[in-house]
């Protein structure tokens, strides 16, 4: 009885609710519907400009300019898309059907805009902007377009920007990236992505159902990315690229106070501007499918047999273990018989009796076969590791390769065969299984130049005006006297009248170095030159590597000479 009364009371309450539902949803339904149609909030992204990449003299290597895109918000454009596409098509001079096709390929997501036309010019953007009243859901978005004024010259160094690929989208969303964001793909753009990248801001606005602004609800200011100042000299960089022309190879120049890279060239190269623009990306196939591999930064990603430049390490391995001294003489008849094989010296006639400094100057192979055999593979292996070979140098550029130094153990576990003296002889002159990257050769010669400072080279000097680079070295333990012996030898290479590196000479500059001519498996050998100057107080170290470039003493030494001369003219030396 009482329960019934309570139940009736409750029923009454339910009825009130019911009546109110009727009132709201049926009688006032239209009123609320218009309210809900009017309710449109848009988020306009304000992209934070990406930081610039500058060289050591604040010359621009990469910067962004504003480009205009025409986009559309599907939910608002649906009803009149056909008519709108015609208007846009007329302004841009493109087939409206193509625009409509692009629109149809939309991805889900209510507020996501669809890009209809990229990088339209300013007057087209204004023309569209004027007609926006007729174009519900359309809008002109601005996007920073990346530009690389030095084009091919610094392409591997700066890298380029590219759109995200599918698997990255989910992962990067967490870091505030949007699907349409582009990110650094190679070089500095990649390794310093997090600094260069601006923080997108946003403008939350309320618009009516024709897309007209009613009021702004909130703004988050975008933040600029940080500018990077490199240790690189853009002028030198482009000078070297001109010297390299079509020759495959890499040139790396490093100053020896802090270990900053002054130039890092790789050839053949590509135009990063094509990669960084939407229209240009259609043409990048020619780079990607080129057999000459222009996309590979040979300086840090190319692994090659070093040839005679490795004799530096062979000599030090023997000297440190007291197997040879400055007065040790080996006779070179033009070959050496090891086991049942004849190992040739590059000079068929032979060099006769040679001491260490002469052997360096003439790059006598027989002398170094003997030196290597007396030191033994283990000592050479150990010294190679001490000079940082078979490990990345740690330069702040992406995807550096390891190189490779063979050892007794490695050969046993890989080929199930013993290490023969012939292998040691090959290793001693930088042939065989040995592979180094040009930047490893650079770090090696810099260690010789600085009497045992193994540099960790760097490219970026300042981030947002704050200096981040510092001299980062670790010691290579060698007796001081032995440094002197090796350096004397390298001095002879360039400055003796019979030195193999004579062509590297520059008037008024005391250069030391070592040439290398490495068997490449093809007819034409790889040409190497590693060197430093001035000998008394080294400021600059350099590696020149020319893939199938012939003799190190000719092409590589010659190119090095031009670079040294440029450095002297520009007061680096």
């Amino acid at each position, binding site marked *: 009885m009482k329960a019934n009364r*309570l139940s009736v009371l409750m029923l009454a309450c339910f009825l009130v609710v019911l009546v109110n539902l009727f009132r709201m*949803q049926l009688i006032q339904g239209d009123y*609320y519907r218009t*309210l809900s149609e009017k*309710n449109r909030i848009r988020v306009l992204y304000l992209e934070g400009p990406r930081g610039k990449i500058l060289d050591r003299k604040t010359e621009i290597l990469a910067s962004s300019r504003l480009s205009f895109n025409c986009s559309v918000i599907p939910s608002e454009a649906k009803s009149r898309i056909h008519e709108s596409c015609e208007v846009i098509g007329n302004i841009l001079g493109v087939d409206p059907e193509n625009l409509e096709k692009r629109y149809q390929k939309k991805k889900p997501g209510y507020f996501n805009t669809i890009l209809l036309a990229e990088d339209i010019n300013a007057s087209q953007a204004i023309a569209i902007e004027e007609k926006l009243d007729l174009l519900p859901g359309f809008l002109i978005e601005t996007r920073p377009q990346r530009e690389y004024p030095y084009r091919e010259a610094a392409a591997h160094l700066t890298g380029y920007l590219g759109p995200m690929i599918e698997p990255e989208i989910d992962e990067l969303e967490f870091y505030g990236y949007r699907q349409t964001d582009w990110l650094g793909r190679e070089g500095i753009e990649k390794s310093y992505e997090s600094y260069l990248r601006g923080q997108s801001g946003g403008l939350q606005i309320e618009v009516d159902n024709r897309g007209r602004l009613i009021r702004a609800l909130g703004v988050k200011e975008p933040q600029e990315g940080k500018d990077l100042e490199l240790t690189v000299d853009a002028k030198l960089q482009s000078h070297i690229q001109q010297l390299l022309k079509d020759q495959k190879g890499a040139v790396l120049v490093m100053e020896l106070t802090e270990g900053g890279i002054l130039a890092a060239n790789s050839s053949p190269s590509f135009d990063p501007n094509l990669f960084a623009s939407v229209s240009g990306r259609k043409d990048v196939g020619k780079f990607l499918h080129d057999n000459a591999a222009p996309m590979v930064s040979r300086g840090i990603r190319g692994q090659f047999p070093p040839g005679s430049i490795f004799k530096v390490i062979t000599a030090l391995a023997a000297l440190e273990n007291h197997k040879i001294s400055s007065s040790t003489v080996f006779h070179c008849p033009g070959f050496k018989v090891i086991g049942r094989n004849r190992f040739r010296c590059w000079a068929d006639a032979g060099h006769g009796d040679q001491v260490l400094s002469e052997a360096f100057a003439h790059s006598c192979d027989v002398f170094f076969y003997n030196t290597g055999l007396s030191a033994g593979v283990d000592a050479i292996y150990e010294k190679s590791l001490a000079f940082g070979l078979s490990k990345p140098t740690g330069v702040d550029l992406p995807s550096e390769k390891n190189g490779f130094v063979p050892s007794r153990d490695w050969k046993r576990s890989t080929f199930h065969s013993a290490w023969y003296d012939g292998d040691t002889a090959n290793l001693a002159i930088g042939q065989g299984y040995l592979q180094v990257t040009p930047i490893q050769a650079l770090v090696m010669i810099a260690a010789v130049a600085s009497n045992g400072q193994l540099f960790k080279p760097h490219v970026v000097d300042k981030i947002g005006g704050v200096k981040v680079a510092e001299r980062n070295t670790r010691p290579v333990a060698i007796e001081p006297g032995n440094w002197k012996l090796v350096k004397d030898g390298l001095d002879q290479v360039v400055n003796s009248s019979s030195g193999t590196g004579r062509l590297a000479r520059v008037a008024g500059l005391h250069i030391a170095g070592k040439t290398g001519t490495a068997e490449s498996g093809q007819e034409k050998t790889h040409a190497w030159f590693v060197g430093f100057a001035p000998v008394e107080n080294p400021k600059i170290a350099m590696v020149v590597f020319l893939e199938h470039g012939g003799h190190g003493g000719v092409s590589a030494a010659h190119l090095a000479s031009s670079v040294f001369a440029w450095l002297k003219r520009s007061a680096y030396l």
Partner: protein
Amino acid sequence: MPILIFFIGILSIYSASFKSGQPIDQTLAMRQFLWMAIGILFVFLIVRVDYFKLQDLVWPLYFFSIFLLVMVLFMPMHLGAHRWIPLGGFNFQPSELAKFSVILALSQFFSDHRPEFMLKSKWALLFLMVATPFFLILKEPDLGTGLILVPIFFAMLYLWGFKLKYIAVFIGIVCLASPFLFHFLKDYQKDRLLVFINPNRDPLGAGYTIIQSKIAIGSGGLFGKGFMGGTQNQLKFVPERHTDFIFAVIAEEGGLVASIIVLVLFWLIVKKGYRICSQIPDRFGSQLACGISTMLGFQTIINLGMTMGLFPVVGVPLPLISYGGSSVVITMLSIGLLLNLKMHRPLF
């Protein structure tokens, strides 16, 4: 019937919390499903016990929930309130349990005493029994759950035989005291009450929820905008749309038809509850049925009224539909008890 309501709830939670690309097993809807499974488990458990045996548990449960209510005040703030006790992976809301145990305690008390033969001290005890959890819950603050206790208390008092006119007098006193009580509310609670009187007072702040929720319901029309098609919901205009304002989602996407279905289903449950209440001869059982039905009924009415702008926004979940583990489990427990009462009618 409850299951049916629940499925409507699952769909609306799914729609309300939909994020593109989220795998189905991580959605709130899926978690709600899990809670429901636990709830159903409880129903089967509780239906099997003779409810007289429950009487022994009443007081321990009551004090346990008071203890939890005190404890929750020392828990870290979450969304500006101490409402939840974190329990390894999920959050437990003790005020829901308190609501339930107060009903049990009151049933026990009312079946042990008669209004005609009550000592003064007993009256005070009765008052204290309700007031303690009431104020503790207000302290959290959880205005909605606290206020739900009041009609439950009155309904059970009335069923007990308490004179209607006394209840009227009591309500009168509360009304007179309300300006004074208003003073004790938190700022945001005051805001909500003032906004209820005039939602346009602060259209982007406190009134925003009511306005957007009303637009959502109203724009649903007769048949609604279709599942996942509600712009108010999908564009996230309605805040708290998977919890307290879930009805706005249902009404927007399902229109009047869906709203009426939900309303009728709730009414059937409540009506059944009162029917059970009137058919049970023993007083503990009928008080219990009355308390539970009143709780379910009022929660529904207040929640719907709130989303439609008929009540101030006080934060009451819609039973079985709103997302929230504690609420689902406790509601299922209550419904389980109702079923139990129906099946175990004592044979004397």
